C-alpha cells in the first residue's frame, strides 16, 4: 500500500478515533506519519477546511466566497484565500481585519468567542497599536535597506517607547497592587514599620 501523500510505501496506519463521522484510517509513509503525529491535534489546516465547509453549508454562496478570498490584510498583506489554503494567519491584526469572516470559524472550532483565563500583565494597548508596531518595524527594515540610518534609528526609538509604555502601564499597575498589599499588611500587623 502506498502513502496517501507520496509514492513511498505506507508503513504507518493511523486511526483518528474522534472524527465526527466515526473513526477514519490514514495510511502514511514514515516521514508523513511523523509530520502528521507531531502536530498537536489533527491537522489545523484540515480542521479549518472542515469548519469552513460547514460555514459554506450555512449559506455562503460561491460568489461571496470568491469575493472574500480576495480580501487582504493591510498590515501583513495575507489574503483570505491564502489563510484558507494554509490554515495560518499572517499577523495579530488579522483577528481584527477578518473578524467578521473568522467569527463563524471560531464558533465552529471552539464554540466560544470570548477568551477566559490568563491575561498578560504587559500587553500592547490595542489591535491598532500592535498593527502600528508591525508597520513601524517594516519601515525600519526598509530604511536600513535604503541606508537611511537616521530614519531607522528614529523608528527604533519609537518602537522602544511604545514597548516601554506598555511595560510602564503594567509596572504602574503592579506598584499599585503591591502598595495595596503593603497597606493591608500594615493593617493586620501593627508592629511593622513602613514609610
Amino acid at each position, binding site marked *: 500500500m502506498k502513502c496517501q501523500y507520496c509514492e513511498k510505501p505506507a508503513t*504507518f*496506519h493511523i486511526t483518528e478515533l474522534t472524527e465526527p463521522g466515526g473513526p477514519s484510517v490514514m495510511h502514511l509513509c514514515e516521514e508523513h506519519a511523523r*509530520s502528521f503525529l507531531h502536530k498537536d491535534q489533527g491537522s489545523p489546516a484540515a480542521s479549518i477546511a472542515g469548519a469552513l465547509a460547514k460555514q459554506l453549508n450555512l449559506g455562503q454562496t460561491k460568489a461571496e466566497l470568491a469575493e472574500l478570498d480576495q480580501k487582504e490584510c493591510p498590515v501583513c498583506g495575507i489574503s483570505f484565500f491564502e489563510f484558507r489554503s494554509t490554515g*495560518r494567519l499572517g499577523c495579530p491584526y488579522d483577528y481584527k481585519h477578518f473578524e467578521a469572516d473568522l467569527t463563524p470559524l471560531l464558533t465552529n472550532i471552539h464554540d466560544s*468567542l470570548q477568551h*477566559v*483565563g*490568563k491575561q498578560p*500583565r504587559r500587553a500592547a494597548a490595542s489591535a491598532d497599536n500592535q498593527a502600528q508596531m508591525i508597520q513601524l518595524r517594516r519601515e525600519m527594515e526598509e530604511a536600513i535597506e535604503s541606508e537611511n540610518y537616521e530614519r531607522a534609528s528614529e523608528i527604533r526609538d519609537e518602537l522602544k517607547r511604545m514597548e516601554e509604555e506598555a511595560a510602564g502601564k503594567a509596572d504602574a499597575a503592579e506598584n499599585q497592587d503591591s502598595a495595596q498589599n503593603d497597606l493591608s499588611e500594615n493593617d493586620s500587623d501593627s508592629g511593622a514599620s513602613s514609610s
Partner: protein
Amino acid sequence: MKSDVDFSKLANTPGEWLRGTGPESDIVISSRIRLARNLADFPFIRRCSDEDRLSIERTVRSRMEQIDQWDDINYVDIDSLSEIDRQFLVERQLISREIADADGSRGVAIDPHEQYSIMVNEEDHLRIQVMHSGLDLISAWKQINRLDDQLESAVLYAYNPQYGYLTACPTNVGTGLRVSVMLHLPALVITQQIEKVFRSMQRINVTVRGLYGEGSQYTGDFYQVSNQVTLGHSEEDLVSLVGEKVVPDIIQYERKARDFLMGKGEKDLHDDVSRALGILSTAKKISSEETMHYLSKVRMGVNLGLISDVEVATINKLFIHTQPAHLQKLHGGLLGTSDRNVKRAGYLQRHLHGQPGQSELN
C-alpha cells in the same frame, strides 16, 4: 543562559518524561502542556521575512538572558545543527518535527533536566512546553505558568482581551494551551474495547489519536489524549478536563481490561509477553517499529508482574535509545537502516540480559 549542550552526554540518559515514575506511571507515560505565544511587534511566522525571523530570535534570546532564574538554560541554534542532531532532539520530544525540518533562524531553549523547552520561530514565535513523567498535569501547569510569567516580563505578547493570546492558527487562539497525556493501553487493544472507549469521549472536547505501525502486524498501543478547544475555557478548566475527567476514566478501563486478561487468559497473556521478550533479547536485526511493538508488550508484562527480571526504567530507556538518531549518537557515527537494525538488536540483547556493555554500543 548557556549554549553548549553536549548531545553525546544527553544521549546516555532517557530524559525526564521517560523516567517511568509519577502517578499512574504503569499506564500514563507522560503529561505535556504547551503554550503558544507571539510577539506583538512582528507578523506571524508565515509572513515574516528572513530579517524578521533573525530579529525575533535575537530579541528573544537576549531577553531570555536577562531572566535571572534562567542561568542554567541551554540555548540551541537549530539552524546550525546537523540533521541527526535535529532528529535527536525530536526523538527526545524537545523540539517538534516542524521546527526540525524548517529553514532559517530558529532555536530552542532547554532546561538541564529536560522538563521544559521553549521553541523560537516554530509555527508561533514562541512555543513553551513542559513535560513530566506520569500523570502530573497540575504541577506541569504551575511550572509552565511560571515560565510564561517570566517570559512575559521580558517580551511583549500579542494579546487581545476578546480573543486572548493571538496565534497563527485559529485552533490555538485564546489560552494557546494544549494539554496532552500519553497513555499506554495494550489491554484495551487486546480486548478490542479501545474504539468503544474513545468513541464515548467524542462529545467532550478531547482529541484522541492512536498510532499503529506496519499494518495490523505491529501495534505500539500508545495513545495521546488532548484538549480540542483553547478559547472560552480557563487554563485550569482545560487541565482539569483532561487530567481529572477524561484520563482517570481511561485508566480505569485499562485496569479493568488488564484484570480481565489476568483472570481469564493469564496463560495466553504470559505466553504473549514472554515471547515478546524472547524476540527482543535474541533477534539479530530488528526495525524500530518492531522494537516498539514488542517493548510495548514487555512493558505491560513487567507492570503486571508476569516478567520479573526486567525493570520498567530499562524498558523506558530502550524505547528512546533504540530510535534512529539516538542509536547513531550512542554508536558515535552515521548508520544506514540495515546497520541500524543490527546495532539495535545488539543493544537490546545486551540490555535485556542485564549486561549493558561498558561502552554502550560497541
